[in-house]
Structure formats: C-alpha cells, structure tokens
C-alpha cells in the first residue's frame, strides 16, 4: 500500500517536475526556436485533450509566421523519418509525456 502510494506520488512528482518544455533536437536559429517552442507549449496546454487541434493550431500559426508549408506531429508514442528544410526543425518534449515534432518542407 505504502509502496503504491509512494510510486503514485513519484509518478505525480515526475510528471510535475518533467513537465517543462525540453528541446530534444533543433537546428532553428535562436529567435525562431524560442517562438516556436512557446507556440507549441501554448497550443498543447490549450488543447490538452485533442492533439489534432493543437497540431492544427501550431501548423497554421507557423505557416503564417514563417511561410508554407509546415508539418506538425504531436503524440505520445511514434517513430518518424522526415525530410525537412535545413534550419526549420524542432523536436521537443512537453508535459512529461507529449512529444512534438515541427518541421518545414514545401
């Protein structure tokens, strides 16, 4: 009992502690990176339950700001192989269990 309670606490803890946005790989310039990261965080928090809407929001904002055409994948478990335009890729983790991959390729 104690153990499960503890493990639950730990889980909650790590979820809290690990919920900050962590950039895993990117080759964007500094400004662009910061902006994109903040946009992803906003979108994921807004559409916490619906990945599709969050991705839609991110994609449309990116298209407007940085030109077409962007692709966004949000999820908890997937593998991918993509071709992206150099200096237009961001792969980050957020919220302890979400992975967001944003890239541009027209």
């Amino acid at each position, binding site marked *: 009992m104690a153990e499960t309670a503890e493990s639950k606490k730990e889980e909650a803890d*790590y979820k809290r*502690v*690990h919920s900050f946005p*962590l950039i*895993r*790989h990117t*080759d964007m310039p500094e400004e662009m990176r910061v902006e994109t990261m903040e946009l992803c965080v906003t979108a994921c928090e807004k559409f916490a339950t619906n990945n599709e809407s969050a991705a839609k929001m991110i994609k449309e904002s990116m298209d407007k700001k940085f030109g077409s055409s962007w692709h966004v994948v949000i*999820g*908890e*478990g*997937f*593998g*991918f*192989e*993509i*071709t*992206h*335009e*150099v200096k*237009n*890729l961001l*792969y980050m*983790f957020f919220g*302890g*269990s*979400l*992975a967001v*991959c944003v*890239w541009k*390729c027209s």
Partner: protein
Amino acid sequence: MPVPQRMGPVKPKQGSNVPSHLTKIPTVKLTKKKDEDDGTEMADGTDEWTQGKTLIKPPDQLDLSEAELKEEFTRILTANNPHAPHNIVRYSFKERSYKPISNVDQLAVHLVLDGNLLHQDSDEACRQRARQGLEKGNMPVESTVAEMDNERPDTPVFGEGVAEEFGAEERPDSAESKSTRREQKLTNQFNFSERASQTLNNPLRQRECQTEPPPRANFSATANQWEIYDAYVEELQKQERNKEKHKAQSMKKEEEKSRKKTAVVETQSDDITNVGRAAKIMERMVNQNAFDDIAQDFKYFEDASDEFREQEGTLLPLWRFQYDKAKRLTVTALCWNPKYKDLFAVGLGSYDFSKQGHGMLIFYSLKNSTFPEYIYPTLSGILCLDIHSSLSYLVAVGFYDGSVAVYNLKEEDDEATYRSTAKSGKHTDPVWQVKWQKDDMDNNHCFFSVSSDGRVASWTLVKNELLFTDITKLSVGGATVERSEEARHLTMACGTSFDFHKKIDYLFLVGTEEGKIHKCSKAYSSQFLETYDAHNMAVEAVRWNPFHPKVFISCSSDWTVKIWDHTVRSPMFTFDLNCAVGDVVWSPYSSAVFAAVTIDGKVHVFDLTVNKYEPICQQLVAAKKTKLTHIEFNPVHPIIIVGDDHGFVTSLKLSPNLRKKPKEKKGQELPKGPEVEVAKMEKLLNLLREPDNS
C-alpha cells in the same frame, strides 16, 4: 441723305453733275453745299443764313453768263448698263441674214466668286456620300435614333416627301454629323496627304530564373514514453551539476565564457586569420629571398681580410630594421629575447624633454627584417625595457611619464597586462631602467625600476595588479639623514641606470645623473654600500661583467668609459672616446671584450686582451647626423644590434678578430667556460693592481 463733304475748292466738273433737285445755282458753291446740309434741317432760316455769308470765288471757276447759268439740263436715269451696246445683231443661219437681238443683256458683272457648296441632290454630292457611306454601316445606334426621329410628327414635311432612303439617310446624317464629326476629319479633298510614323519599339526579350530551393535534411527519431522520461531525467541531472559548478566558480566561468565568445566571434568573422600562418611563412620566405645575400653573410661570411689586420676588426652591416610609424622616434631600449635567439625587442620613445609624444614597443625577428613581429603602441615614450629571463613572453617596460608596465606577448590585444598608475605608486620622473628579478617567495614575478625621481622601486605582479615597494631612495649626500621631508626631496639624486649582479642577488649598482655610482644592497634601503665618483656628467650605463664577479663598466656623456673593480674606489681602465657615449655593453662570449656607441654614429669595440688602450674596431655605422643610442650583443650569434635616434635598428656582424678566442696551443686542451674568462680578467687587473700596490 446729307453726305458730309467738306471740300474747299469745288471742281467745275461737279458743277455739271449737280443733281436736278437743286434749283438754286448761286455763285458761291461752298455755301451751297452747306445749305444742302442745313437745308434739310432748317429750311426756313436758310435765306437769311446764306445772305450773311461772304462770297468767295475759286480762281479757276468757269465764267458763265446769267442766261447760261439759268439753263436747265435734264438728265434721265435708267438702269441700263452704259457699257452695254444698244443694238446687237446676230447672224441667223436659218434666214441667212443679220437679225437684231431683241433683248440686250444689261447685266454688268462686277464680281464672280465660285463657291464650294454642293446641292445635296446633285451627282457629286451623291458620290461623296457613297464614299463616306462605308462608315454608315457601323452606326446602328444612330440608325435607331434616326428611326425615332422619323416617327416624330415634328419632322419637316420635305423629309417625308423624298424617297425613304434619303429620309433615312438624312436623319442619320444630321444625327451622325455631330458624332462623326468627332471621328472624321474634314479633309481638304484636293490638297491633303496623310503622314504617319512609328517610333522604334524595343525588341522584347524573355528572361527566366530559377532560385535554388532551400536545402533539405533528413531527420528521424522515436517518441516513446520511456524516451521522454529518460530525456527529462538527464536534463534535471545536468541542471543540478550546473548549479554546483556555478556556486564554485561563478566568476571564472563567466570570464571564460565571455572570452570564448569573443574568440569565437573573432574567428568566425575574420577569415584572414586562417591564412595568417601561411601568410607569415610566405612573408618570411619572400624576405629571405629578397635579402638572400644578407642572410648568407650572416651565416657564413667571415671577413678574410682580418687575417691581415693584426689587431683590428670590422663590423659588417647586415639587416636594417625600420618601421614606418616609428620613423620619428628614437630607439631608447634594446633587448634580445633569451629564449628565441632571433627575436629582439626595441623600445621607442624620445630623449628630448620638449618633444615628448607617443612611444612604441616593437619586436623584430631576424627572419623578417621588413616588418615587426609584434607592435605595441604606447601613449608615452618608452625609455627602457627588459625581457624576463625564463618567461620570455613577459616584457617589463618603463615609460617617460614615470609609469611601468608589463606586456604579455602571448595575449592578443595591444594593451599592457599590468600598468602602474599614479595611485599605485608610479614614478614621478622618467623611468630609466627596469630589470626582472627572480620570482619572490610567493612565486610572483617581480622587477626593479630606477627613475630620475631618485627612487629604486620593486614591482611585484600579484594577480591582476602591480604592487610596488621602494627599495632605495637615492640622495645626493650619500646616506639619507633624517631631515624634514622637503629637504629630503630636494636632495634626491636622479638614477639613470642600474644593474644587478649576476651571482650576488642582493647587490646592485645604480648610476646617477650627477655622475656618481652607488653600490647598493636590496637589504639596506637607506644606506649605500659604496659610492664611486665615477663621472663628471650623467652615467648613461652601468653593467656588471658577465664573467668576473668584481668588475663592472660604466659610460657617461663626459666622453669616457670606465672599468671598475667594485672593491676599489678608482677605475681600473678609462677610455676616452672623443664623443658622448650613449651605451656600453659587455660581450657574452668574452670577459675582456666590450662595445660602446657614441652619438657621432660610431661603434667602438674593445678587446682588452689585445689592446688595453685603444679600440680594436672603430666604425661609423650610421648615416650622418644620426646618433646611436643603444647597443646589444646577441647572446648566440656573432652579431650586434645598434639603435639610433631615427627609429632604425641596424644589425652588424662582428668580424673574426673581434671575437677572438685565445689561441689553442698545440697539444694543450684549453679549458673553456667562464673560468677562463675570469682568469683573463684577473690577469688584466693584476697588471694594473701591481703598480698600484707597489
């Protein structure tokens, strides 16, 4: 109608043509005329008025009798042409006789003008309309308008009476005329030519371009829960480690980071630095090729004529070092680098009190005589410099403004690493000599400086600062006596040169402006161990003999060079050079050889084992009116460098005679090394001493 005729002389012809309505024919026609005019207006008063007038006769008037005057002439006016014949007869072929014409034409034509109006029904008009009729087909609007006009009951009757075509045409005509007038120019039928021209249209060209598409790259990863978890854990660990490091070394980290950043920025922006090394090698090669003969001389040339000259030698000029920006400065200090035997430092400034400007610290290498290796511009003129014996990148410099500085050659920037300021105890007068010492007990580097303000100070490099301590205060009367501060200040002597003993660390000599040389010890700050009345003028240089522990040499502007044994108060040798001596220096390879430079541009080399009274070489090295200021022997190569007051440094090679080693006797191994030199000197001194002692 009264025609105003104000004619004076009335002509007689007019008299015959007097109109019939005139009844009265008075003699005075002038007044008659007036009566005519007035008659219509004032008929009653004419008689009275005419009687009042005087009679004037024109001179050529016809004289007619009364009866003749009253004659009445009748004239009948008709509309007949007076020029037309009264009776015209024409031949009639039918009756074969002349017959009179009944009517004679009385028409007189005065003026005929041909007009160009055509009746609209005439042939010509039809033809013209036909020509213009092509455009009528394009006027459907007008035709509808015409139809409407036709329907109007107000249309004049004559339009309907005429054939419908004309009616239709008329309406369009009148309606069209206004509109077509805009389009059709009324052209002159007989004298009209149309001209048209077209300007050159530039030929069209097609251009296409395709930009390069932005580069693409592939990327792949997997997004799993455990991957995410692992990444977060790693990140947290990294953060904790960073925090620890921060607490420990916050300051240093920042410095390093900023330095790295600047370094990175520099390397990113300056691509020439990549080529820098190669360029440097190229430059050296080019110089070597350009000055190939000098390089060959430097290495291999030995003056063969020295064999014939018993005791004399020569100096072969080699490279000449100059720097553009140093042209107006005087060479005030020279120093060979102890580690790199081809590198030497030149300090530039000015000895002239009134003309003090900036200075420069320049490093030359023998491998590149055209451009310095290192250049450090300074605000104040440099007066002395010294390179640390073991750390050959540390250079101590003394300035004219009394401050001292230490430059680190390894650093990239142009600024001194350490600099003394007024707060940190810089001298108040020019610093004439600096010398490095052995590291002190805390392993901090330190050096000494002597200046005209009478202080000998020691400077220690502690972390970022220069700390100074006064070692000795020089005063005129020898040992300092307790006096009021003012008086003490006044009696300060001005130190112009000093030198530390090679073996005995605490012992050093100071030469002053008054011509005295003091032997001092680092331990005693107020008292001198010994004072020598050396010269009559300022002592320019004081040097210990590198081999013999007791001998030192001094030179002065009073034209003399003196060699001393420090135990004896009077000089061992005195040499008069006939000119103020700028600098004197012992040779590194022999204890009995030294060289001196004078301000007349000559270098004097003495070898006491060969000639005790005269130089074995006296050579004019510089151009006219160039003063030589400093001289230095290269510790390894047989060359000397000489600095002058135009900023040039000349290198000279010593001929074999000048660097004679004692001849080897057959079969005897000659002991080499400093003992030999010491022995040499001892022998010389003994020669002098014996007569003294006796």
